[in-house]
Every structure is written in C-alpha cells, then in structure tokens.
C-alpha cells in the first residue's frame, strides 16, 4: 500500500522486507535527481544549442545561393535577354565597400532603462566583488 505512494525505483519493487523498503524511501528523495540523467543532459544540450547559434557555422558555412534566378530571365524574340540589376541573388556582390556598420536605431536612448543598461560599463557604475 505504501509503495503506491512513492516508488522512484520500480526495479527494486520485488523486495519484500519491510525494513529495507522504509530505508529506501528515506533515501529516495536524495537519489531522485539521478533519474533519467541522460535524457536531462540531452535536453539541456538541445536547449543550449538552440539558444547559442553556432557562430562558426554561420560565418564559415557555405552560403546557399539561389541558382534559379538565372533561369527565369525573360527573352525578347529569342535573341536578346533583358539584363536587369540583380536584386535577390548575390545581393551583396556589388554593394558598397564600406566597413562602417550602421547601428540599429531601435534603442530609444531617452528611456531611463536604456541608460541604466550600460551604467556598469563605466567606472562610475558598480564593480564586481573581486575587483576594485
């Protein structure tokens, strides 16, 4: 009857001795974290994977390019092809060679919270415990 309440280690159910059963129940709480460790680890790993992008892959990975764009070029009388500046494909090949990275203007620096978000970057902000 007791078993139906808490039975974290079902493989040991067969044992009959009441005393041992009691002991097991006491230690059960402490051992619960061991259940399904592999599965937990797998979940944590997947969570981590989805949260942090693989930067290396993003930077060095092969760029998937649409080769289809070439095919749907319109022909005029079967002789001439209309040559248009390409928009989607190789969009960056002929872009402006400029190292400046335009910051996104989505942050409203009039807001107190925005100002607070970088306060600790300055020597006037709070310092970590181990440094001063």
């Amino acid at each position, binding site marked *: 009857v007791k078993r139906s309440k808490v039975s974290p280690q079902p493989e040991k159910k067969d044992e009959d001795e009441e005393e041992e059963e009691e002991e097991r129940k006491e230690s059960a709480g402490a051992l619960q974290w061991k259940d399904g460790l592999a599965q937990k680890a797998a979940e944590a790993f997947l969570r981590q994977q989805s*949260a942090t992008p693989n930067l290396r892959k*993003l930077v060095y990975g092969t760029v998937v390019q649409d080769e289809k764009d070439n095919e749907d070029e319109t022909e005029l009388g079967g002789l001439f092809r209309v040559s248009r*500046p390409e928009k989607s494909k190789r969009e*960056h*090949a002929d872009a402006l060679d400029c*190292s400046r990275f335009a910051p996104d203007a989505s942050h409203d*620096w009039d807001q107190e919270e925005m100002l607070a978000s970088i306060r600790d970057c300055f020597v006037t902000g709070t310092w970590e415990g181990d440094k001063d």
Partner: protein
Amino acid sequence: MANKGLVYDGCNFFRQRLVLSLLSGKRVTIRNIRSKDDNPGLRDFEASFIRLMDKITNGTRIEINQTGTVLSFQPGLLYGGSVEHECNPQRSVGYCLEALLMLAPFMKNSLRAVLKGVTNDQMDPSVDTLKASAIPLMKKFGLDGEGLELKVVKRGMPPGGGGEVLFTCPVRRTIRPVQLTDPGKIKRIRGTAYSVRVSPQMANRIVDSARSILNKFIPDIYIYTDHMKGANAGKSPGFGLSLVAETTNGSFLSAELVSSPQGQGDPALPEDLGRKCATLLLEEIYRYTSVTRWTVSIEDALSKLGCDGGFVDSTNQSLSLLYMTLGQQDVSKALLGPLSPYTIAFLRHVRDFFQIMFKMEAQKHEEESQKGGDKVLMTCVGAGYTNISKTLK
C-alpha cells in the same frame, strides 16, 4: 593567363581582397564588377585606390579589361617609403587609410603617406576616429614608437575635399600576439568637434549638446573644438563630431557623425548632431558590452551581409583580426561585439587567403549586471607571418 589565383565576383569588399592579396602574395581576380549596372565597371575611387596600391608596392601587375568589369591583380613587394596620393573625393581618405593601416607594418621601408582629399564624410570612418581608436589598437600589437602617427594637416569636407592627412608607421618583423579579453570599464570620453567654413560657434554648440547626454554617466569628458581657417579649411563647409570612450584596460570605442555635404540632404542643427552622436556612442558601448542581442544581430548581420562590441569597436574589428591572423604562432584572443557584415566577409576572406579560421564563442551576459548586450570571443593561432622584406639596419 592560366592561373587566375583566387576568383571573386563583384566590387564589394574590394579593399579587403587587394590587401589580403598583397599580404599573402596570392594573385586575385575580381570579375563581374558592376556588370549588370547601368554604369558598369570600376569607379573612379576604386581606380584611385588601385593606383595607391601600385605606389606603395614594387612589381605589382594590374590588368583591367576594357569595360572595367574584370580586374586581375598580381601582388608585388610591399615597398613603402614616402608616398603622396590624391584620394578621389567620392570617398574619404578613411577609405584608403583603412587599407594602409593594415598594410603599413609589413612593408620594406616604413611608410610615410600624405593623403589628400576628403577627411571626414558620412560613409567611411573619419581620420579623427581612426586616429583615436585604430592607432591605440595598433600599439597593443607592438606597433609603437614615435614613428606611428596620424595627423590632420588640413581638413576637407565633401563634396569639395581639399584636406590633407599625414600617416607614418614603423615596420615590424613580427606582430605580437594579444589577449584582448577584458576591456575593463570606461574611464573617460574624449572627442573632437570640428567645423570648417562655418561659424566657429558650431563646434561649441555640438560639444554642449553631446556633453548633456554623456555627463549622466561620467564626469571625465573632454571634447576638443577644432576650427580650421583659410587654406587649412578645405573647399567645402561642414562640421561634425567624433567621440571616443577609453576603458581602464586601454580599449577604445568610437562613434562619429558628420553634417550632410553642402547642397545634399537635410541641413543638420549642431545640437541635434551632438546629441545623436552621443547616442551612437552609447549604442556602441551597448554593443561592445552586450551578449543576448548577439543571436538576433548575427542573423540580422548575415542577412545584410555584419556584428560588433567587446574590446575592439566596430570600426576596427577587421584590423584587429588581421593582426591576430598575421601574428606569431601563438594564441591570440579578442573580445568583439556583434560582428559586422564587413567583418564576417573579412573572416571568410582570411580563410581563403591564409587558411586561418577563428574559434568563436558567444559570451552571454549576466542577467543582473548592467553591462549592455552580447559579445563574441575570437580566438586564433597566428600564421607566424614574418616580414622578410623589412630592411635590416
């Protein structure tokens, strides 16, 4: 010719490709330069850039086809020495200077370049910003001494130009590996507010409005006002502001803003410009310190085909990465903010030319700390590049 070397398409990342080609000695061919454009081929400023590359080298072979859509570049020896160059006013001196900063330490003779043209424009990093952020960064890599100097002799605003810049840089046999992982905290902000051919009061008005924002964070702010007159003022009127935040560990973050060229765009009020520029600096600080935004920004960056923050600010990411690549065979580390599209392209080019790939780790920021967004830690082993052409004395 049978061997075309590395082949690329399009005119984007033009400077990166030529610079890496010169450093690695690999031939490069760039095809389809604006081939579908109404006005195909190389532009004047690119031609001017090629001419500059020709001036600082010996034995470089350049072939351009009739329409200017194909460029074949066989790099020669980086010679250096004294060079004077008229930069095309379509792009500012910063355009050429960025490439020279990358090449200068690896020349045979130390470089002394006089560049004429537009000193500050809205597209490229201005001379003031490079002076305040790139030069201290170069010192981190062991490029110091009195020979390293960047000076604005005359200021020139677009569209007329007429400015003059002096850049000198010593040569090194090897570049020191670096560990730029802990930027520390920002201890002071410096800046230059300049005005030419307008009322000198403009610069003061810029300074006042920029200070009104930055003073909320730190009291140690000094913004120089630089008003040039007469022959030193160039041919066009304009004003602007360049700000640099310095951290306790010697990292420099920059932001800048320039008034629109005469007769183009909306006329700017100096107050607005000062305020906006201060905000840009805050944005840069946020990026440099920030890590959740990273996820969004890298996708965003790749879609725009860029990211920044960390020890090195967005303007100088590729410069620091190049020096890390060409360092001694030792581990170099640098903390960057979200990478910019330009930097991502640069990393790909470095892989093509030097077969060096960086290890990238996203650094999450701690929730409770008020230190802005996401960063990325870049690690690589230097190529063990030695400047064998350096003259021995």
